[in-house]
């Protein structure tokens, strides 16, 4: 119609963008399959595999027993003999029981074998809180996985990024930990904030790992963040518009980490706020600040971290909200580095 305004043809929730990428890769390559708890009939408890069983059947979308060590090990073995598995760890918090398979096998067998075997697999896992699932089902644990060499670590914050990052993860010949935040998925019983639902191209596309995205440009303060907190940082930045001009950097991947984009921004603004839903100590926020100090100390005049405290995540709704960084907390930190 000649008089109609051009509007985006479709927008997808983050869960649908992930499913879109997985389905497309499975259509193109017989070696790609999905395994995990409740990935078949249930479609993933956060809709990460919704609808795949119908198209691909049970030989390719495999429900597995509640035995994380067993099925993650099976995925490692399958990858080593030429398949490209996507193993879903239902909650990142359950990593401990499978950590030998994740860290000693998945992450290291390429190196230990002198590249005799590769481990092209995706460990897809749900992270984060905000919906009162208590201390053992609400962690992000970004720093835990990013700390351990041999795995790439990917954290989408929007549907468009989620699709491109998933295509890249499946095609990568190295193991990739793909950490999606439950609150961003856009499922019916857990509404997403504004922001993660975006136009998503019908075409396949990849987002190269190690490329952070400047989601908002600004001259006064650099905010570095990822996952859910991209959207809270943008909310804080918009609230401060006219008072402080805030740049928001979405890391998108932790391994490899796009240090240069952070440094370029810090050289411009001189002030750094890092926002992380992980615990305060020994994590991503400390790493970002350390790299900023190493690479741009002369330009840095102020630094703040806004994180979960070092405490188990409370069940009670007001307490959980209190410990999780909100837009107000971020705005306070932005003001704090400009005083």
């Amino acid at each position, binding site marked *: *119609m000649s*008089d*109609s*305004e051009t*509007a*985006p*043809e*479709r*927008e*997808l*929730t983050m869960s*649908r963008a992930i499913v879109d990428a997985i389905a497309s890769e499975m259509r193109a390559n017989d070696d790609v399959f999905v395994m995990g708890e409740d990935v078949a009939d249930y479609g993933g408890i956060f*809709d990460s595999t919704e609808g795949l069983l119908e198209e691909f059947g049970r030989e390719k979308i495999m429900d597995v027993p509640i035995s994380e060590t067993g099925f993650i090990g099976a995925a490692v073995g399958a990858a080593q003999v030429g398949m490209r598995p996507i193993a879903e760890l239902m909650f990142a918090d359950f990593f401990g029981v499978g950590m030998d398979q994740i860290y000693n096998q998945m992450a290291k067998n390429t190196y230990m074998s002198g590249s005799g075997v590769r481990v092209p697999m995706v460990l897809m896992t749900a992270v984060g809180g905000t919906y009162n699932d208590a201390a053992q089902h609400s962690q992000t644990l970004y720093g835990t996985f990013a700390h351990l060499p041999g795995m790439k670590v990917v954290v989408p914050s929007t549907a468009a990024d989620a699709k491109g990052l998933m295509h890249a993860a499946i095609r990568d010949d190295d193991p990739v930990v793909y950490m999606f935040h439950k609150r961003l998925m*856009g*499922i*019916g*019983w857990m*509404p997403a904030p504004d922001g993660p*639902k975006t136009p998503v191209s019908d075409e396949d596309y990849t987002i190269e790992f190690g490329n952070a995205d400047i989601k908002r440009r600004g001259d006064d303060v650099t905010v570095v963040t990822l996952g859910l907190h991209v959207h809270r940082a943008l909310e804080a930045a918009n609230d401060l518009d006219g008072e402080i001009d805030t740049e928001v950097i979405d890391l998108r991947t932790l391994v490899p980490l796009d240090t240069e984009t952070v440094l370029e921004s810090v050289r411009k603004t001189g002030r750094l706020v890092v926002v992380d839903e992980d615990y305060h100590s020994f994590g991503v926020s400390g790493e970002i600040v350390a790299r900023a100090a190493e690479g741009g100390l002369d330009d840095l005049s102020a630094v703040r971290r806004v994180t979960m405290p070092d405490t188990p995540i409370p069940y009670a709704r007001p307490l959980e909200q209190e410990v999780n960084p909100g837009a107000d907390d971020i705005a306070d930190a932005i003001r704090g580095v400009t005083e």
Partner: protein
Amino acid sequence: MSGDTIPVDSEAVWPADAEDVEEAVVSNWFVREGAAVTQGDAIAEIQIEKVSIDVPAPTTGTLTDIVISEHDEFRRGSVLARITPD
């Protein structure tokens, strides 16, 4: 524009096993007003109790009106949106 629009009817997607449920909520819109839509493509997702249902476009055309906004509740049979057919 001809002015005639086709309603996106919630009754058409109401599942048989929810005969006794009278209300639902729009979980997501996947297109904005003004977007081109193709018959059969999912343009919205509604949630009836705990079940999510995709709402297909009843015809190909332009989505001219979103009547029930995202996260709003509505009653069975409500018109969710209107499409001007090509």
